[in-house]
């Protein structure tokens, strides 16, 4: 920034736009050039808030409805974890517990912490926070595990009329949490971490 160089988000071309152009554009692909993702923090916060809202019904509402001859039962994620917990099934139970409850909440908390740190302009340990950001981004796709497991189960267990498993409304919220946290991660600009750290170097009015 100090050098006035901008990296194009579309084609990766690094260019120096005209000094006082109102809307700098990439000379190669005509993508609007920005020094930082626009409204990064606001977007991240918005997605985080939405994810946090969806996190509540995702955990309170049943994600699976199992119909057997003995009757119909709807289980929430936590009930599923309890149901799976057995001498032989505990690893799966733990995986579901981590993938479905710990990781989404950890992601929300971690991103919240990053947003807060940028807002407050914390200068300490930007490298660690960047690593945290990378980790959150990496984990993101794996927290879809539960959604996959449940949808696969639903697709496989259709022994009508003896038994059937159907996804319930909680699964939609759960998927929403996963998607919204991924969007939040996507919206967050890790360069902002360094903006505060390098405030002494670069400062914009």
């Amino acid at each position, binding site marked *: 920034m100090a050098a006035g160089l901008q990296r194009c988000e579309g084609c990766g071309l690094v260019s120096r736009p005209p000094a006082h152009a109102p809307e700098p554009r990439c000379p190669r692909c005509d993508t609007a050039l920005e020094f930082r993702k626009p*409204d990064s923090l606001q977007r991240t916060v918005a997605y985080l*808030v939405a*994810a946090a809202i969806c996190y509540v019904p995702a955990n309170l509402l049943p994600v699976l409805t199992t119909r057997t001859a003995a*009757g*119909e039962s709807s289980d929430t994620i936590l009930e599923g974890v309890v149901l799976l917990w057995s001498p032989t099934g505990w690893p799966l139970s733990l995986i579901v517990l981590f993938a479905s409850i710990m990781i989404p909440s950890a992601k929300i908390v971690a991103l919240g912490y990053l947003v807060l740190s940028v807002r407050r302009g914390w200068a300490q340990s930007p490298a660690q926070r960047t690593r945290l950001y990378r980790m959150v981004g990496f984990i993101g796709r794996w927290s879809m595990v539960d959604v996959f497991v449940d949808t696969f189960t639903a697709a496989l267990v259709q022994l009508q009329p003896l038994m059937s498993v159907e996804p319930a409304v909680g699964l939609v919220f759960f998927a929403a949490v996963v998607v919204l946290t991924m969007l939040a991660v996507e919206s967050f600009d890790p360069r902002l971490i360094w903006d505060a750290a390098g405030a002494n170097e670069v400062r914009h009015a």
Partner: protein
Amino acid sequence: MPRRRTRMSLVWVVPIVAAIVGVWVAVAKIMGEGPTITIVFDSAEGMEAGKTEIHYNGVTVGTLATLRIAKDHRKVVATARMQPETASFLVEDTHFWVVRPRISGATVSGLGTLISGAYVGMEIGKSTRSERSFVALASPPVVSQDVAGTFFVLRTSQLGSLDYGTPIYFRRLQVGEVASYELDADGRALTVRIFVQAPYDGYVTTATRFWQASGIDVSLTAAGLTVQTQSLLSILVGGIAFEAPPGAAAGAAAPAETTFTLYDDRTQAFQPPRGVSQTYELVFRQSVRGLAVGAPVEFWGIPIGEVVDVRPEVDTTKMALTVHVTVEVHPELLHVTAPSQATPGGVEEHRVRVDGLVAHGMRAQLQTGNLLTGALFVALDFFPDAPQASIDWSLTPPRIPTTAGEIAALEAKITRLVTKLEALPIDAIGKDVTEVLRTLDATLAEARRTLAAADKALADAGTLVAPDSALRVELSGMLQEMSRAMRSLRVLTDYLERHPESLLRGKSGEAK
């Protein structure tokens, strides 16, 4: 460098939408969350928290959420989450009960629960007062309050395999069930209340017969082997079937609480109508040895009733022993064709009819039915010579006049004969006879003499014709001569026949 300062981004729509959807789902869930009620059960056997459902008319209307032991350590308190639409049903007199497989005696109920597990049945009350805590019924109410239909009453001497909920069949279609039964105060019979659902209750007419359709009814008749069953379930748990007898007039629909007789089987049910039995008492002044309870009452050989009680009574004032025989008569079996039937079956008419029969000499008599065993039966017969008698309808039961039985009548006849014999002047007759005999003796002596004379005469006659007497010889010779002469005369006539001319010309010399 002019940096676009933070403005409200459109991205905030996302959390707003999420919040709206979340709130909407939450509201929908809360709204969809029906009322929570508590039900106290005697036992939680077969029930499972979160799984056991509450059914109303086969529709799941709730689920038992939790089960816990009540504070008194005896009952079980269940919390049930009900469907929201049930809120208006949960009133004071709404009933709950457990439906679990029940096998008692010959009754199997709740067969469905063997597969589905126990569930809680529900019956909606009529009250308007809302209620959220209930005590479950010990046994399922047999008839739901809101099922249209009619109650009828059946009278039977024994319950058999009947129980609450025993199905009622009409043409093998289950149309009702046994609602209740109770033993009469005197312990002699049972009153069974049954419920027949609409519209099938319309088929219960005054002519309808009810019978125990329990199991398989195999009957071997002249027509062959007949097997009657109602359904597989009735074989298992028994049942009651009803039908109008074939060929009978349909009759009017029976009003509620009409009493019917419950027959033991279809054959018995379709016997000619017996109707309401009439009880009469017969008083005999004779031995009733051989008369048993159940002996038939016959009218000219047609059974129309039976003996229900035989009991001796001693009148200490007159020192007379009488035997009181109570009989039940089914007058309908007689097919009375009365000229006027203004009130058919009316009590008055019936009395007039019986009075008429008695006036014409109808009496009850003990008769021997089986010569080997000496079993007696009661015969109603006409004895026009019987002394005038009538029925006193004020007595309970009224008494039909009796006449001495065959044996008693025979005894009476013999007695009369003996008395007559005793009255005969045997001695005088004896004297007369002696006199007559003496005269006869003299006459006989006379006769003997006459006979001797006759004998002599005959003997004389015998000498005359003795073989070697002269008369005999001469007679013999004369007869031989006569015979010879006759032969010559025949030869002559033969010759004359062939040679009639010889009479004119004389016998020709030529020899033929």
